Structure formats: C-alpha cells, structure tokens
C-alpha cells in the first residue's frame, strides 16, 4: 500500500524528534538519580555551600543562565512563526528562509536550556534541601504538569524544525500549526515556571504556618499574571536582540555580498522585533509594580524607594543606552536607503531630545535618598537638574523617548518611498499633528504632575502612555494606505551598512542581557531575607542584601558566561551551514 509507506524525510523527522525526547528523558533521569543520591548521601542540613562557594551565588548564576536561554527558546518561536506566516501569505521565499534561520538557532539552545535547568534542580536539592522540599511538596501537581509540558514542547519543537521542508505548498498550514503549538506549549511552560517564582514574592493560598490551603490561590497569586505578561514580552525582545546579534556576527564574517545582504536583513528584522517588543515592556512593568505595591506597600517601597532604589538609576542608564543604540542603528541603516538622506536633518534634533530624556531619566530622585546620599548630591534634589529628577519629569522623558524612537523608525520605513496617493499632503500633516498632539499631552501632564499629590500623579502616567500608544496606532494606520503604491526612489542596498552598525546590534543584545540580569536581581532581591515573603525566612548565612557593586559584578559575570555559551550556539549553526554548503 503506497500510503502506508514512510518517506526517508518523514523517518528522519521522526528520528530527530525522538533524539530530542531521548535527550530530555536521559537528562531528567540523571537529575533525579543525582538529586536523590545527594539527598541520601549528604549529611542532613537546612543549607549547604558548594565546596565552600556561596550557595546563593551558585543558584543565582545557574538560574539566571537557565532563564536567559529559556527566554531565547520561548521568544524566538513567536516571531519565527509570524515571519513564516508572512512568507506564506506574501509568497516571498526570503521570509520563509529567515524564519528557518531563526529556528535553526533553537535546537542547540534547547539542549543548553535543559542542561542548565537540570543543573539548577540538582543545586536546589543539594544546597537548599529544606526549602526545596517545602516548595516541591506544596506545588507537586504543577511539577507533573511541567514535565508533561517539557515533553510536549520538545516533541512539537523538533517536529517543527524537522518537517520544515516536508510540508511545503498546500501542506504548509500543517507546519504553521506545529509552529503555533510550539508557542502554546512554550507559553504554558513559562506560566507554570512563573508560579513558583511569583509565589515566593507574593504568597497566597497558605496559612500562617505555611501549609497549603488553596492550590489555585497559590498559583494565581497577585504577581503571577503580571510577570507572565512581562516575561512573554521580554522574551520576544530578548530573542529578537540575540537573533540580531547572530545576524551581526554572520554579517561581519560574510564572504560574499549575497551573504552580507542576507545577514544585514536578518540583523535589521531582529532589531526591529527587539525594539517593537521592548516598547510596551515598561507598561507591563508598571502593572507588575502596581501589583507589588498592592500586595505589600513595604515590598513596593523597598523596591522603588528603599534598598533597591539606586538600581533603577542603572536601569534608566541601560534603557537610555538601548534607545540611543537603536536610533543610531536606524540612522546608520538609512545610509543604505536611496532617498533617506531627506530625513538626515531630523537626526540631530532627535539625538538632542533622546540625550535630554536620558539625562532626566537617569537622575536620582530625592525620595529614596538617605542623608549620606543627599549630601553626596548636594541637597534633596540633584544639584543641576533639581526638580527634573522627580517622577513627573521621568515619565515625560521616557514617553518622549519612545515617541522619538518610533518616529525614527517611521522615517526609516519611508526612506526610499514617496507617497503618490492624492491625499498624501493631508495624510502627512495629520501624522505630524498626531505626533505633536501626543507630545503636548505628555508634556502637559508632565508639568501638571508637579502641582498634584503623588497618588494622583501616578494616574497621569496612564494618560501619557495612552497618548503615545494612540499616536503610534493612528500614525501607522495612516502610513499603511499612504505608502500603498508609493514611488520607489531606489531599492534598499542590503549589505551596504558600516560594520559599526553591527556593533550597535551587539550593544543591544549585551544591554538587554545585562538588563534582564539586573531586573531579575531586583525582582528576587526585594524579598530580602525571606524565601517566601513574610512566611518562610531565609536562615542561611547569605540571607543579606549585598552591595549594589557586588550584585552588578555578578550580573556582569552572568552576561559574559551567557555570551560565551551563546557563541557555541552561533558556532554550531554556522558550522552546520558550512557543512551543508560543502555537501
């Protein structure tokens, strides 16, 4: 019977998928045996050190690396499928190739994520046995779900990769369905993992003695959904940034113009995804912050106005750097777009605006300053910026920076095109008015914020954000028909971009990674000396809040380690390409 036969490609797909299943099975078995072996072999203790090395730092480093790889493998499939859908709808093969290029990076990254996850689990059992025992007992059903999801994710992800060329043409829809399934399983995995983390921050569903009273309440704790959404967006932004860095590496190592053009385009798409997902991230962050405050004023104040307040200045510096770098990349990219020289005149004013915004945002606020800090600043406010260092000015600055970056991208998009529709002039004026109106709303509320109490002021950020989002939506809604049938001045000269633009992409990837490490530290650190905030105390020697300098050194170490591991992923992907080319 012809249809009962299996083609060699289908057999290969099945074999590849099974390899993934076998790998994860062996890893889980090894983890279980090692963890159980250590449990029975090591002398009883609540906490243990790792051969004299700090248990907290060991768990921190591995957990953060695991999280970064997990973010990458969960983020990349989201935009890989979207790119594949675009390719399928437009019938442009280059989109399908790009989506495949994205997905190619995943196989090795999955393995590294799983290995790091297994090491982390062993460390938990070995170094924090008592607390790990408590958490595993409390959340036993979720662990079972998690393991099922891991297998589901591995199967669909490997099938998605191995069936890429097996399901062309009319069967493409089945391949797209696999891609969607990868994302559904991946998102479910993320949501389950977030249960444990968020429970530790904002426990619910337990009594005063820590006994479980309601599993669903423990799962659906106050910070669970805000972190789910925040991480989902951050994963896309992070995945985009790493993919852009991969494009940059391949661009710098390219041997032909064709290869340079291909990876220039990949870097551009990656950075576009990173910045696109990055823009709504602060809003998800506001939601998370609000939930933290509602759960515990004390925790919220520690985060924003207490021990961790200075780290937000570092965050502002990083995000300011990200805005500047992404704009710099776009402006350099305009050099390869015929006709884009028309917009060069906007670059200097935009840079000034971004720089001012950066300075305002990175200025310390008075409210968190101690006596020593205030004397270091020369008063309760910054000696030069004065009242521009408060939240009213910061919110205004960041919204204007978002608007400027958006405008930069829109100019880039329009670089080589001249609208030909009859209403082009009206359309462009309307777009300018929309941007101006949003700027006025942002500035107006920024100034008004100085005259109202803080509880009213915090509500103004919603109006400012809404104005910016609305302006962006209206601008794009006009832009799409405006550029329909537009006259093209010339084709984009992909590949003809200076090497320094690729370093801007590396800067984006490094800064995103460092930022993720820093934010992870703040999120975890605000529990201070609690394993589970207010319920289960950390009684180990490491239950103190370290200095910011020490913490930032660890974050830097993690970032370097991550990129060393990522370079293995890049090297493997490149090697496979060369192998295929040789064959």
């Amino acid at each position, binding site marked *: 019977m012809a249809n009962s*036969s*299996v*083609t*060699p490609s289908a*057999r290969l797909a099945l074999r590849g998928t*099974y390899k993934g299943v*076998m790998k994860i*099975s062996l890893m*889980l078995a090894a983890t279980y045996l090692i963890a*159980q*072996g250590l*449990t*029975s072999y090591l*002398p*009883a*203790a*609540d906490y243990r050190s790792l051969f004299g090395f700090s248990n907290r730092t060991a768990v921190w480093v591995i957990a953060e690396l695991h999280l970064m790889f997990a973010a990458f493998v969960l983020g990349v499939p989201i935009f890989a499928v979207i790119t594949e859908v675009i390719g399928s709808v437009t019938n442009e093969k280059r989109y399908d190739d790009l989506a495949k290029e994205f997905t190619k990076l995943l196989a090795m990254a999955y393995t590294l994520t799983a290995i790091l996850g297994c090491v982390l689990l062993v460390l938990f059992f070995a170094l924090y*046995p*008592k607390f790990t025992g408590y958490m595993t007992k409390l959340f036993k059903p979720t662990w*079972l779900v998690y393991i099922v999801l891991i*297998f589901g994710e591995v199967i669909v992800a490997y099938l998605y990769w191995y069936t890429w060329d097996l399901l062309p043409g009319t069967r493409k829809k089945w391949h797209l369905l696999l891609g969607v399934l990868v994302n559904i399983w991946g998102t479910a995995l993320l949501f389950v993992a977030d249960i444990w983390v968020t429970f530790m921050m904002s426990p619910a569903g337990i009594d*005063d*003695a*820590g*006994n479980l009273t309601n599993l669903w309440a423990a799962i659906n704790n106050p910070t669970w959904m805000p972190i789910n959404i925040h991480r989902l967006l951050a994963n896309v932004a992070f995945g985009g940034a790493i993919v852009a860095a991969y494009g940059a590496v391949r661009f*710098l*190592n390219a041997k032909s113009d064709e290869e340079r053009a291909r990876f220039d385009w990949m870097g551009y798409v990656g950075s576009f995804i990173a910045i696109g997902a990055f823009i709504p991230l602060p809003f998800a962050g506001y939601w998370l912050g609000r939930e933290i405050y509602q759960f*515990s*004023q*004390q925790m919220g*104040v520690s985060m924003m*106005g*207490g*021990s961790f307040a*200075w*780290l937000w200045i570092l965050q502002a*510096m990083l995000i300011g750097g990200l805005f500047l770098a992404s704009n710099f990349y776009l402006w350099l990219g305009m050099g390869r777009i015929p006709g884009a020289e028309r917009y060069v005149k906007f670059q200097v004013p935009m840079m000034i605006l971004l720089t001012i915004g950066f300075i305002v945002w990175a200025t310390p606020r008075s409210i968190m300053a*101690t006596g*020593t*800090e205030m004397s*270091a600043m020369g008063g309760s406010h910054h000696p030069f910026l004065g009242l521009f260092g408060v939240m009213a000015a910061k919110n205004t600055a960041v919204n204007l920076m978002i608007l400027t970056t958006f405008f930069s991208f829109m100019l880039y998009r329009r670089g080589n095109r001249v609208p030909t529709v009859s209403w082009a002039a009206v359309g462009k004026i309307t777009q300018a008015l929309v941007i101006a109106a949003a700027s006025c709303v942002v500035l107006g509320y920024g100034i008004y914020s100085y005259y109202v109490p803080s509880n009213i002021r915090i509500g103004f950020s919603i109006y400012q954000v809404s104005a910016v989002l609305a302006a962006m939506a209206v601008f794009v809604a006009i832009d799409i028909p405006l550029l329909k049938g537009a006259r093209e001045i010339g084709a984009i000269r992909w590949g003809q971009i200076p090497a320094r633009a690729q*370093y801007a992409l*590396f800067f984006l990837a*490094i800064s995103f990674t*460092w930022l993720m490490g820093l934010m992870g530290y703040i999120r975890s650190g605000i529990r*201070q*000396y609690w394993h589970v*905030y*207010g*319920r289960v105390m950390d009684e180990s020697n490491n*239950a*103190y*809040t370290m*200095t*910011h*300098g020490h*913490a*930032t*050194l660890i*974050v830097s170490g993690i970032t370097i380690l991550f990129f060393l591991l990522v370079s293995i992923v890049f090297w493997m992907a490149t090697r496979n390409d060369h192998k295929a080319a040789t064959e």
Partner: protein
Amino acid sequence: MKTTFFKIFAFLLLTVSIYSYVGQLVPQFEEYPPAKQNITVSTSPTDLANIGEEIVRVKGGCLICHKVTESGNVRGPDLRQAAGKAATRKEGMGAEAYLLESITQPDVFLVPGYPKMMPSALKPPANLNLAEVKAVIAYLQTLGGIEVTVKIEASDIAAAKAAGPVHKGKGAMGTYGCVGCHKVEGEGGEVGPELTKVGATRTPEELLQKIVNPAAWTTAGYQPGIMPVEIGKSIPEGDRHEIVAYLMGLSGKTYSPTGAESPWSHEGVRLGLVILVFNIIMLAALAIANRRTKGAA
C-alpha cells in the same frame, strides 16, 4: 573569523565593564536580616527600648515610611512625636493603648493627612510578636523623651511566632495528639514521660524509631505497651522528622529534617516508568517507520 570573535568579545567586556563600573558608583551598603532578640519579663526599660529601636530600623521596616531623624521619610507620621501625641489622638484612650492599637491595627484610626497604607505589625512581613511590639513602644517613648511605662507580660513572649514551615514540629505534636499523653514545654498530659529534654539523652534515630515502633524502648518508670502503634505510623514521614527536629532543638541540639525523605519516592519512580514507556512507544514507532521506509525502497 577568530579576529571578529576577539573583537566582539572585547566589545562585550568593555560594555559590561562600564555597567559594572557604574554599579560601583552608586551608594554601597549591605542589609542584614534582623538579629534574634531575647525579650523577657525582666528586660530593663533601657534594653527594651534598644531592642525596639533595632526592630524599628530592621525587622519592622518602619523607617521605609516613618522618620526618626530630620531627614527621614514622610509617608507616615514623624515617630519622634508619636509617643508625645499618643494620649491626645483618641478620646478616652491612653497613650500606651493607642500606640499598641496603631501598631497592631493601624487602620482603626488614621492620623489626619495620612493614607491607609500600613500593614499590621503582627502580620507578615514584619510578623512581630506582642513582646516585640511593646519593645517598639518603649523605643517610641524614649524617642519622645517620655518615661518607658510599657511592661512585658509572660503571655506576650509565649505568643512568639515560628518562622514558618521550617519549624513546624511543635504544631505537628499537637496535630497528631502527642501532647495528649506527653508534656512538652510545660503543656500536655502525664500518661507518658515528659519530652522537653528527651533530646539530651536520646539520638534523633532513637526518637524516630520510637515513634513508629513504641516497643523499641521504654523510659524507666513507665509501663511498656501503653503507646499506641497506629498513631506513630499514621504520622507522615516528613512530619515525624519535624517532631524530632523540634524535640532535639529543645535540648539545644540541631537536627535537620532534611535528607529524611525516602531517596526513592514513589512519585519519582512512577513518573520515570511513564517516561520509559513513552520512550519505548516512540522507539517502536521509529522501528516501524524504518521498516516501512525499507519496504518502500
């Protein structure tokens, strides 16, 4: 390719070095968990006030919103005036009673001009006991230049809370009825021997054995065979270890209930079997696919 790698790596080092350097520029400080305070009925007013000051600064987290010096936070009222104004805040309520209420039930009365935002000090994350709350009142009285009038009662100390599930042996002894026959820390029956200091003469292993097998040994002066076999066996393994940890702790010895779990838990083995079966099914599918491919060829 190698040159590119080194260039990129140098760029990575430069970027993270800048970030690390800025991290060194911001104010540097470490924050430690609150020290365990030993408050007794005979703690002197001065010591009590000193302990209270430590609680206000660290465990209570009070200074996140209040101030005790000119430059502190102003989200809540100035604590320097708290004791002085306490007697005038609520009509018919004494200063000490008002301070106690404002710390343990802060929402009952709000000082005009301040929002409802303070959690009860008896609840997490401060999680103070009454003795600690009274120490805070002693500090507030000292801070306001008033004589310390607050007194510690024995019941205030008895209300001290455990840190959480890490130390739940005491509760488990109540749950499983052990204290029905045994006296521990002054409470419980007298059918069996007092267990408060049993850890001084017995090892954790002996105690664990005794719980599941009461015939293993019997304390001199007590009749064997009284302790029911079923009770001990009905106590989950983890809780048996918690009870032993608690009893050893009463004799000043540490015993960690960790490592007590069976190394071959049923769930783990069962899950492993399911994964194994799944692997076998996939291998079988692969073998069938191989055969059909060969057949087609």
